[in-house]
């Protein structure tokens, strides 16, 4: 965990090729991150942005989250519903659909496989 936090500032010194490769790489991960967050319970847009922004390693902004929420909703993996808010205007809450639950389970399993394999490949010998 500690190591991950140290990585983020180093990106500024990397080339633009590295940046675009990293952003490609993150896009897929952020989708899983949103599903994982909603798997814990429903949340509204601003809350999702805020909670994911709490993980600087993911480098997520509102500009990334909202288009993904819209896409996940169009593909039927998440549902949304407007609810009154105790403060201010109503909020749109997102939650996993049944299809989303199944997809999340499959993606989480695949993620375990990927991280396991990558840990082995990167090994402890590779300086991280």
């Amino acid at each position, binding site marked *: 965990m500690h190591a991950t936090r140290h990585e983020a500032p180093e990106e500024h010194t990397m080339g633009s090729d590295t940046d675009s490769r990293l952003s*490609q790489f993150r896009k897929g991960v952020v989708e899983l991150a949103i599903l994982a967050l909603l798997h814990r319970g429903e949340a509204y847009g601003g809350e999702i942005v805020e909670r994911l922004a709490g993980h600087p390693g993911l480098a997520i902004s509102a500009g990334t989250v909202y288009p993904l929420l819209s896409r996940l909703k169009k593909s039927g993996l998440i549902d949304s*519903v407007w*609810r009154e808010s105790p403060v201010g205007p*109503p909020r749109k809450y997102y939650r996993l659909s049944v299809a989303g639950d199944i997809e999340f389970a499959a993606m989480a399993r695949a993620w375990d496989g990927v991280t396991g394999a990558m840990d082995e490949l990167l090994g402890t010998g590779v300086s991280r």
Partner: protein
Amino acid sequence: MNAPEPAPMAGLTPEAAALVETYFSRVHGALLVAAAGECEETVEDLRAHVLEELQGSAGTAADVTRVLSELGPPEALAAECVDATMGGRPVALEPAEDHSKLHGRVFGVPYELRPPTAARVVALWWNPLDPHVFVPTMFGLGWTVNFGSIAVRLGIVRPDDEDVPFAAVPKRYVAIALVLPVLVAGFLGTLIAVYQAALPAQVVNHWGITGAPDQFGSKESALFFPVVMTLMGLALIGVTWIRTRTPLLRVGAGALTTWLGAISVADYAQRVATAHGATGAWILLPGIALSFLLTFGLLVTLSRIGHAAEVRRDLDKGSKKGRV
């Protein structure tokens, strides 16, 4: 571009060699024109890999089938290669016309030569999900503004206030997107009816960067730009309203026509003012600003109405459930 030399197929039976040949020609056939050049090398590497795998075997058709089956169908392999080469851009999903040279970038500046459609108007002008304020223009060269992003920045809307833009707007309010541009066109018609006859024989047709007139024409030529622009907009509205009931498309057509109409009014009013002795572009420039403001107002208003309808639908559902 010369394709790399195919690897030799030594040690294979003619039947097996033909199988390899057929497989890779299908891969090449399935590659998109756009990516063919860049994928060629990858495909040749794969072909070399297949032949290497076959080295240790008897080189029969059955061996070839076994090795090739690991690669999957040739079309899927081609799609994977294109996807990897083009950086995951969804080239294969875009309609065929998108492979044309009608839109793209020159020296980093976007250009668009396809005529604007109602769908593209909304995709560019009203996309609150996209934080970019400047987006590629819908026609010509350069950029246009994403009013949706401005509205989000101003705190007027939230990015997810509507599932699909304007989808929940009740029919009677979608009509605003018809009435407003027709009113603007009517205003232009009135201006023409009142002022055209009194215009001098020669009018200013163009103003330079400094605001000084630099091109002149007959008084009829003053009508060309505003009338053509407004009629094109009205034609788009007509076609859209006849062909579809989708609010998104109707609003898109209405927004573009409102903008074209307002620009036309500003243009014509400026010509009339100049003919009456005005100097500088003191009507045209504020008029252009006003045309953007009017369009912004139309899109924001309809989006707020759509948002309110969406919220009401969910809250009503919730309260009904609560009562049961």
